[in-house]
């Protein structure tokens, strides 16, 4: 049993005196695809940022790829990919310049993979990033996170702005990427239908803690409901 890819223990994070995360524990095993589910404002983004060492929790420990998240080594960073919720790319750069710029930092950048994905996803290489639509910008951001074939891929609401074709391509890519036992994917979303397909584990964030974490099929076996219905029931709402 190898170490988990992400390990959060007792994470507490407060904003303005309100505790967004309250003693949260989460262990993401290597090689799994974990979907993080939660209402808007539940703290999914905060959780991800604490796990990646972007913000410092008030309490608890965050470990990432067998290292402390706050002091990640450069070597660990080459095995990590992150797509933030709010995509913030250099708006004045051309897309292919941006790709070259990012590629320069990763010794393990896979140029042929990037070229293939660029063609498949119809990413306009010669356009500047600023005028790109939200969906296109998101695709570029995902591409930049995939280019170095990371062992751990963390995505925050990745498919929210993608059209159905792009979303299917994206999910296909995640499925392809997530070879059992080799690569780990953590993504937060509130689109349960995406999770049903792609994830094999589900973590539900509620009231600052993980209310349920385990195999998706276990959840279904226990409740005999689909993911959306389980989620609604957990929040005591009537399914339509």
């Amino acid at each position, binding site marked *: 049993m190898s170490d988990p890819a992400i390990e959060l223990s007792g994470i507490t994070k407060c*904003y*303005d005196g309100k505790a967004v995360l309250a003693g949260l524990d989460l262990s993401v095993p290597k090689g799994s695809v974990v979907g993080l589910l939660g209402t808007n404002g539940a703290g999914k983004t905060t959780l991800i*940022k604490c796990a*990646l*060492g*972007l*913000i*410092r929790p008030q309490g608890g420990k965050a470990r990432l790829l067998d290292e402390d998240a706050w002091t*990640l080594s*450069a*070597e660990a*960073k*080459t095995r*990590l990919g*992150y797509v*933030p919720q*709010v995509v*913030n790319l*250099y*708006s*004045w*750069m051309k897309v292919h*310049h941006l790709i*070259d*710029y*990012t590629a*320069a*930092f*990763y010794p393990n950048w896979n140029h042929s993979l990037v070229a293939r994905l660029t063609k498949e996803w119809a990413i306009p290489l010669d356009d*500047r990033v*600023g*005028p790109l639509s939200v969906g296109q910008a998101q695709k570029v951001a995902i591409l930049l996170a995939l280019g170095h074939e990371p062992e751990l891929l963390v995505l925050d609401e990745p498919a929210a702005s993608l059209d159905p074709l792009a979303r299917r391509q994206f999910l296909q890519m995640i499925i392809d990427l997530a070879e059992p036992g080799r690569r780990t994917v953590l993504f937060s979303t509130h689109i349960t239908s995406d999770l049903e397909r792609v994830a094999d584990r589900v973590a539900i964030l509620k009231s600052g803690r993980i209310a349920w974490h385990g195999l998706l099929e276990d959840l279904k076996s226990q409740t005999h409901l689909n993911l959306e219905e389980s989620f609604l029931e957990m929040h005591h709402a009537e399914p339509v």
Partner: protein
Amino acid sequence: MPNAYKQVALTYLRRPFSSWIGVCMFIGALGMIPMGIVCLLEGGRGRPPAPAFFPVVMLFLFLYWSLAMHMKDQFADSRARLTPGFRRVHVVVAGTAILVCVVLLPGVVALAGGLRSVGLVALSVLFFDAVLWQVVSNSSWIALVLLAGWAGAMTDPIRAALGDFISGKLELQAVVLLLAGVVIAGQTMLRLVRLTEDDPKRYRRIQWDNLGRIRLAGHAWQDDTSLRQRFRNRAIDQGLRVLTRHALAAPTSWWSRVRRWPIGAVTPLSIWSQSLFMFIVLQIMTWFIPDLPGEENEGKMITLLPMLIMVFLIPSFSLFGMLSTRRPLMGRELLLPVTRRDYVRQLGGAALVNFLQIWVTVTVTMVVWWLLNRWRAPLESGVIIHLLFYSVVVQVLAFGLVVWATSLRSRVSAYATLIVAIAGSQFVGMVCLMSPQDLPEYALPLIGATLAVIGLVFLWHGHHRWLAADFD
């Protein structure tokens, strides 16, 4: 990793060429270097540099600001913490860029201009420090300091002191200040590199996308719990209460209909703070003046009048900024139960009301200031009356221009038009008001009327543009 250094350096070089404003600035910067050298040479050793040196300074300011913003863009992002080797590469390239622009460039200008001291370099390092601090800390009081400095530098005693500093009479102080400047720059860079999202006030930065729209990146200002923000929040809440009252009341009169559309000085507090700020600036100016003896009256006019003219122009044109940030909301507002014609007219009415408010505030402030300082800065009452007449005329011009400029889709062209208009009207104002006795009797009213007519033409044209504009 050598490719990484090359790529990061390329970002510095490519950015100016990604927009035509950048290209203009680049060309301007290139042109300003020889101009700076010429100014220094003309100034000669021991004498303050020629007044034309100041545009050079402004251009360097813009260069430093662009540099600082570029660095902030790079470090205030999750990429900075998660990309391997990011910090090392970017700090090295940033350091090189700073060395070239802040130390070498002024050094070359100083050497070519015949100066043999580190004074100019020390000044530019301190200048850069101020700009970098402002950009990294997102604090606006540095801008005030710079503004005060610029105002002060227009006065003779400060210019003389600067001249001494640059030409080497205060060599020891220059060296000390240079070293201090370098240390401060290092500290600020360290803070920049260590920036995390846990510091929302500093993490926030302004981004312009290619269409000239401003996007505020980073945390929302709701997270900002500083005293200043809380003060602002209170003022905004107050203004909103007034607005709500207007909105709930039945729109029986044109006045109440107009009052419902908020633009600009929504809160009474902002009017007061604007006038207070203006008053303080003018007052600080006058404190520098008493050093001049009586026969230097002409000198006082040179320093005072541009300020006074600006005082009428800047608040009006700042309304443009507010109107254009409003533009994305206009599409939504048009869906409210109001016809397009009525909407444009009422919005225009609201803008007009705001213009009038600002004009009254500024005029009252200026008159109060003049009354208080009449014995110290004697401007003849004739000049004051001409100034007031000019202010009225310039308001008409400004209003027309603002209405027209906000209807333009490209913010860049709008800003360019406004800058030309500001410069042009300031030039006209100075020519007319500095030496009214040299001009024939009818000249002043004629020029005033021309400016007003230009403003009205723009207003009419702008009104028609608005009626057919695309709101999206």
